[in-house]
């Protein structure tokens, strides 16, 4: 839109200059906010991060005893494992369904059916996470107890299913975009060679769109890592290295949500929760960045 630049700035009335300034300010607001988030979260946690926290212990110990009277220990290893294992489980469920649905919607559907599915997926994405948590706590809890004969239904499996349901919409929409971005000439060329639709998908579309599909999975995973209420309510919230889908776990996000309300400001424990926040911010930032680079990579090709 270089053409816009042709107007000379000197002739602009004052009000217009003010408005432009405001618009520019809004334009860079997201940058300001991203830095602001990092700055303020870092600011609250920095004191203890650089002065007092044993980082090795933080990253490798399972001893999470933030309120011990004599021997406070801040080992977040179990929480990190918890976060990643429940995310992995959620992805195991969500990726096949998400990619399957994306392929179906983009390649097999009539336009009308496609619209319907997309609306359903959009509505699924709109259900608040606390409602998923509530479903996990009531309905899914009972279901897991009955189906698996487990003593308690608040498990990694429960949280994983909830997270899968929450990240499927993201995976579907991004994966569908990626499949759509594959030029029709690819499909036509393959079909002209006598390939069936499935062969076209399997041999041509999936390889061609693999970056976009990868980005879809990454963004779905980022969503799961950052999710709070559903895992707080559905995973049992126990500092525990999981031994299987029916063990209970605790995630980084849930730990902040459960404990932040109860710590005095400036306390070591308070600062550690902010350090967990920094960790989460970094993880999701990196995952988003990679996903973005992967997507941009396709565009340049």
């Amino acid at each position, binding site marked *: 839109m270089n053409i816009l630049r042709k107007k000379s700035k000197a002739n602009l009335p004052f009000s217009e200059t003010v408005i432009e300034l405001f618009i520019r300010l809004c334009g860079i607001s997201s940058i300001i906010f991203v830095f602001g988030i990092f700055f303020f979260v870092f600011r609250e946690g920095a004191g203890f991060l650089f002065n007092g926290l044993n980082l090795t212990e933080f990253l490798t110990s*399972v*001893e*999470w*005893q*933030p*309120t*011990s*009277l*004599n*021997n406070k220990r801040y080992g977040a290893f*179990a929480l990190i494992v918890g976060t990643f294992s429940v995310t992995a489980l959620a992805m195991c469920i969500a990726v096949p369904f998400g990619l399957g649905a994306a392929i179906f919607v983009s390649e097999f559907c009539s336009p009308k059916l496609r619209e319907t599915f997309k609306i359903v997926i959009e509505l699924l994405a709109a259900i608040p996470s606390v409602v998923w948590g509530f479903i996990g706590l009531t309905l899914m*809890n*009972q279901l897991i*107890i009955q189906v698996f004969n487990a*003593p*308690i*239904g*608040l498990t990694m499996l429960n949280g994983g299913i909830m997270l899968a349901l929450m990240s499927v919409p993201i995976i579907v929409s991004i994966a569908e975009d990626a499949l759509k971005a594959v030029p029709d000439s690819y499909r036509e060329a393959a079909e002209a060679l006598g390939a069936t639709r499935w062969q076209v998908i399997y041999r041509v579309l999936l390889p061609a769109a693999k970056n976009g599909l990868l980005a879809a999975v990454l963004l779905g995973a980022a969503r799961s890592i950052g999710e709070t209420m559903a895992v*707080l*309510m559905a995973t*049992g*919230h*126990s*500092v*525990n290295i999981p031994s299987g889908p029916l063990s*209970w776990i*605790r995630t980084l996000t849930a730990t902040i949500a*459960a*404990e932040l*309300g*109860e*710590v*005095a*400001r400036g306390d070591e*424990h308070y600062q550690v929760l902010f350090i967990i926040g920094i960790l989460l911010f970094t993880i999701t930032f990196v995952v988003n960045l990679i996903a973005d680079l992967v997507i941009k990579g396709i565009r340049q090709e």
Partner: protein
Amino acid sequence: MKKTVIVCFVSVLVCGCVVIGCSPPDGHNSNNVATKNSVHVTIKNKGSDTIVNLAQAWAEKYTSVSRTASVEVSGGGSGTGVAALINGTVDIANCSRQIKPKELEQATQNTGKVPQEFIVGYDALAVYVHPDTPIDKITIPQLAEIYGEGGKITKWSHLGIQNSACPSDEIIRISRQSNSGTYFYFREALLGENRDFRIGSLDLHGSKDVVEVIGRTPCAIGYSGMGYATSHVKMLAIATDEDASYYAPTLENVLAKSYPIARPLYMYSLGEPVGEIKAYLDWILSTEGQKIVQKLGFVPVENN
């Protein structure tokens, strides 16, 4: 058509502005529009999750008692209440443990007012199990072995019972998030100050959650206020050690101070309470206020 849409958009914004604009920014609750009184005070009340239901019940009832004050209640735990007291952001802090001398000093320093203590009721922590678990009583040292770091009791059979409802025999420990007053008190009652809880328990978010999960789980043991008992769980009688006698968590035993894990519930005001805050605290300690304590399964003060 476009105009209509723009008009809709603008009117939404205007309505929003009106909503905001109509709230007087001077800190008084705008309830005074509804109630005819000129001054309406909001009392900020915050703290212990154990007390939060009680505090909420008081706040709710108090609306029909006082036309000049309403009470805002939030939970979050005793730590939150004390922290808010130190920062001077609440009028009354709820606490299920006594304020520490250090916190008292901090609050006095920060706000220039000395927090005043009020005992507003008593809470007995009950140990809950599933009704199918064949156990009726337990000792404090046994509980310490179940919950404490390095504890030796991890299976029901270690307690000498055959828990047929629980095929894995594993004791599932239900606990609370590590900063709640209930957690602190139970840990202190079981293990003193030098030992911590073993990790790996299910740290649930609310007192009610604990009872509900135990009600569905034959392998589980957990603790929560006795006011939270339901028909789906069983409360155990507790003894300080094997030779002592066992006491069930009942009103009588708590009042007679023979039940070993009971504690007072505190409210702290910033400085000597005056005006509406004093009126509220006085009402809480009155017969009417204490009736609510009993109704919620806690133990009222004045019978003491």
